[in-house]
């Protein structure tokens, strides 16, 4: 398969597994007929016979490196999905991947960069409930023109103490998914704190770009491309930063911010 210019292959030791693997591939993947791939995943499904005192293990390799080994096939398949997405984000020469939630609103992209557990997906979900269009809860995908592309996959919302994600499609939340790449209108840098009031402060374009840099997947391996695309990305954007309490309050406030075209200037 090929996605964002990255070619990867998946092979399995038993037949009939592939239909279950296809939904795990990165959004927008295509069949590649090239024989040589950059990363080859080998999924070894443990045989069905249980021997006394022995565990049946399923093992996933990426090239010659073991990625996962577990008795639960579902967990190993989850590892395949995660690793393949991460590798694509890191290796693609065509795009810059930001760790961010993204929604479309009034023809512009609102980008919410942030580390794991910062509450991106929760905020994205609330914006979808208020009528925003779903673009991603994991990666903002930026092209050479600075446009933000959709990376649509089910939202993974962490609802229990183990941080396990429950998957929701945008449709199940009553939202549409974006298709067209958008110009970024706003970036929201926020963290969650119980009981906090959402009172964001404007951030300068340079400081905002630095926040985006801090969430760029491949900045270490592709610094030139990353900076060049960030420079294009932020041209028409405003940045706000703050601590939020309940996502609903923050989401409503963010969507009510005037867009840059309507007079909100960058700090």
């Amino acid at each position, binding site marked *: 398969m090929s996605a964002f210019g990255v070619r990867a292959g998946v092979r399995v030791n038993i037949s009939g597994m592939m239909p279950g693997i296809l939904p795990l591939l990165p959004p927008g993947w295509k069949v590649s007929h090239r024989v040589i791939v950059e990363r080859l995943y080998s999924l070894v499904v443990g045989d069905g016979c249980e021997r006394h005192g022995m565990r049946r293990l399923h093992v996933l390799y990426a090239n010659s490196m*073991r990625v*996962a080994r577990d008795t639960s096939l579902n967990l190993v398949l989850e*590892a395949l999905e*995660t690793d393949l997405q991460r590798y694509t984000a890191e290796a693609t020469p065509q795009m810059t991947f930001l760790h961010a939630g993204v929604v479309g609103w009034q023809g512009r992209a609102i980008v919410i960069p942030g580390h*794991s557990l910062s509450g991106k997906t929760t905020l994205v979900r609330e914006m979808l409930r208020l009528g925003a269009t779903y673009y991603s809860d994991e990666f903002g995908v930026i092209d050479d023109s600075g446009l933000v592309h959709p990376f649509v996959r089910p939202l993974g919302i962490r609802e229990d103490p*183990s941080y396990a994600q429950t998957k929701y499609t945008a449709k199940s939340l009553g939202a549409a998914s974006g298709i067209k790449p958008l110009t970024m209108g706003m970036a929201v840098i926020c963290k969650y704190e119980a009981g906090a009031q959402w009172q964001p402060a404007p951030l300068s374009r340079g400081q905002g770009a630095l926040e985006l840099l801090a*969430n*760029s*997947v491949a900045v270490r391996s592709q610094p030139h491309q990353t900076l060049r695309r960030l420079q294009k990305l932020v041209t028409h954007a405003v940045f706000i930063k703050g601590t939020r309490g309940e996502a609903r309050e923050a989401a409503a406030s963010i969507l009510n911010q005037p867009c840059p075209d309507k007079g909100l200037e*960058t700090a």
Partner: protein
Amino acid sequence: MKERQLPRARVDCISREFGDEVLVYDLQQDVGHCLNWTAAATWRLCDGNSSPSQIAGTLSRKLSVQVDESVVLLALDQLADAHLLVEPEVLPGRPSRRVAIRRMGIAAAIALPLVTSIVAPTPAQAASCLHGGSPCTSNAQCCSNVCDLLVTHRCVLG
């Protein structure tokens, strides 16, 4: 004049303009810096041939306002801390922020120099972490930051 009093900007960095500010990426240390206008203008004038007072003079002419040398020294101090100067040594007469503000006057025409830095993330840091019980191969992958590498090869519950 000693060489250390003629600051020179490192050239092995990538820089891009973002409005009035400049983003600098240090390829050696994988650190990103945001320089505000004053810090960026000072950094650009660090050619290895100009002293801090000469840099202050050049800035004054560019802006048509008096830029005190203490402002330049404050900028150089921050640039040196960020490792954006060649052989950053302690500059003579490290100014305090308070002195620089006083000398700039209340109605200052330029902002105090400011350099903000972040360490660039590794790909694992810039992706969602794995929940407790997920197969893992390193601590950094797990939300709890603990992967049981000895027995289960799974993320430990946080």
